[in-house]
């Protein structure tokens, strides 16, 4: 029987000819990524819970400080020191302040065909390059670190057949929110979201990251694209070769199929407190905001900054709003400097921050207070996610967020 891309990656990692949904396999992991959200816990368990701990292959490990960088209090400084020292002692690749972990991983490590575990739920982003990335907790991470292996239950795949092309002013961000609004916040629980079709080919690697990154918000184990010419070109630019390029077989089995016509997608907003609470952006227009956030592993890439800069050029951020602009990596930041985008944002009154997770995870910088409202290109809008339990988060595209920052209320670029 035919297999999907995800099934082929798992089969290769398990060293077997074929797998099917429901099988449990022991797999060799190609890489393991952990950030400052939980690495200190892994280090504690490694040092205190194992009789004779060792690391299967230090070359497979990547530690990235991005959640609270630079550290914001003695507690985070201590947990980061623990992580930094451990990386040094064990010769583990260590990144600090260089970008949000998933952006750093895509720019520097991820290869098509790899199976990657990350101690962060948005590890599913790596499907943009045809890799199987999935989020795990620190105990699973520790196990992978020690043995180089883990177990996986082979997930069913759901096919998202994309047709057409996104209209002008509509972004991949609008598309993935539309998809999650349709399938629901647990619509693909424990499944793989495979994005395919002619429409998928029109999407850039950045767009693909935006889609795969939020697969977990539909409950999925991962999101994945076939590694096509665009992916190969990206790899070449970044000096890497694929591990293996897999295609889904014509007779591969999908548990469900959806078709989305990209030309029909319109700007949307996810209202508090659930990512699947998606409405046409017009329905949220007029809601007053206190802060706007352009950044995160979902939407902090150069393409997103260009969208924002084009809208805000020559205009001013509302005096009722703090507008945070946070490039997802230093590479992106420097590119934005070269293109003059940072100048445009600063001229307009935005607060440009160093690459980090920022307000998206509600603990870094930009946390919002009692009853405040944020519009964000971040990943989640759960109750209290960005700060005070009474605060509210709306999710929108780079265009909607920037237009809202200017208007002082949720707005579309056409209203500015």
């Amino acid at each position, binding site marked *: 029987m035919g297999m999907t891309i995800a099934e082929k990656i798992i089969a290769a990692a398990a060293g077997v000819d074929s797998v*099917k949904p*429901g*099988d*449990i*396999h*022991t797999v060799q992991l190609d890489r393991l990524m952990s950030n400052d*959200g*939980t690495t200190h*816990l892994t280090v504690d*368990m490694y040092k205190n*819970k*194992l*009789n*004779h*701990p*060792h690391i299967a292959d230090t070359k497979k490990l990547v530690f990235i400080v991005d959640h*609270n960088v630079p550290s914001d*209090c003695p*507690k*985070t400084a201590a*947990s980061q020191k623990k992580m930094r020292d451990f990386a040094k002692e064990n010769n583990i690749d260590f990144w600090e302040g260089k970008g949000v972990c998933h952006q750093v991983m895509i720019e520097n490590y991820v290869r098509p065909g790899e199976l990657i575990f990350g*101690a*962060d*739920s948005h590890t599913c982003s790596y499907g943009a390059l045809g890799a199987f990335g999935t*989020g*795990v*907790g*620190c*105990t*699973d991470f*520790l*196990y992978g670190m*020690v*043995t180089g*292996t883990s*177990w996986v*239950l082979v997930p069913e795949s759901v096919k998202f057949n994309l047709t057409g092309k996104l209209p002008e002013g509509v972004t991949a961000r609008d598309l993935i929110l539309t998809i999650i609004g349709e399938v629901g*916040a*647990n619509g693909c*629980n*424990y499944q793989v979201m495979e994005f395919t079709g002619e429409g998928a080919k029109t999407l850039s690697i950045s767009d693909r990251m935006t889609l795969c990154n939020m697969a*977990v*918000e539909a*409950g999925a*184990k991962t999101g994945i694209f076939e590694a096509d010419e665009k992916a190969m070109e990206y790899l070449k630019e970044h000096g890497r070769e694929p591990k293996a390029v897999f295609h889904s077989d014509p007779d591969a089995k999908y548990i469900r199929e959806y078709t989305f016509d990209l030309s029909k997608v319109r700007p949307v907003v996810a209202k508090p407190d*659930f990512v699947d609470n998606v409405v046409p952006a017009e329905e949220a227009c007029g809601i007053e905001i206190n802060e706007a956030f352009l950044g995160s592993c979902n939407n902090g890439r150069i393409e997103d900054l260009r969208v924002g800069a084009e809208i805000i050029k020559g205009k001013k951020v509302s005096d009722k709003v703090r507008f945070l602009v946070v490039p997802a990596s230093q590479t992106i930041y420097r590119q934005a400097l070269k293109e003059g985008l940072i100048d445009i944002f600063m001229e307009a009154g935005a607060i440009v921050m160093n690459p980090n997770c920022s307000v998206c*995870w*509600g*603990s870094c910088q930009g*946390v919002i207070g009692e009853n405040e409202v944020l519009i964000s290109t971040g990943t*989640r809008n*759960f*109750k*209290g*996610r960005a*700060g005070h*339990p009474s605060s509210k988060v709306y999710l929108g595209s780079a265009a909607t967020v920037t237009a809202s920052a200017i208007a002082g209320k949720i707005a579309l670029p056409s209203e500015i």
Partner: protein
Amino acid sequence: MFFAKIPRHTRQNAITEGDLECILTHNCEGTEQLSLYLVRYIRIMEKFTGRVWVLGDDIDTDIIIPTEYLALKTIDDMKQYGFSPLRPELAGQIQKGDIIVAGKNFGCGSSREQAPEIIKALGIQCVIAKSFARIFFRNSINNGLLLIEQPDLHDDMKEGDTVTVVMNEHVDYNGKQYPIASLPENLMSIIQAGGLVKAMRKLNGLD
């Protein structure tokens, strides 16, 4: 769901939390394969009763433990803030042995492992929900928090009432039985005793 494949009886004497244990799994072709597994015990009793707290759909990990408290030193320091964005008083009201009954997609969101740890530290002995998010599910197994999937109980459940869970069979509530999945031993059974565990540890250079 994966939890249906947890062995019916986890042995509680031969190994302790944190050990690497060898488990035998059978894939669907019946082929056996050996895996090492880091043990965090799930202590499963045959039958137990508990007072119920009712929560809704999509209880996410930021509700279970908000980000701002993750920097606290220990789980015991954090647990008083469990569920605080939704019900600030709840953590103080939960008593050891209580049960949470929730709607769909319990535990969605972040991979933070503090979420199941806090629920366990509050004394909750199991969560019964319509469905669970996958990362949370895996983390719960690894942290010894028992999860049970049951589609109908939540709709009938009244907070403060008690339910009785008969493992592998059903939940008793208000004179009605709500069936739950059994935990089939043929899919994943732990190999007996420490001998093989020790052997596997040696094989992996861990002892």
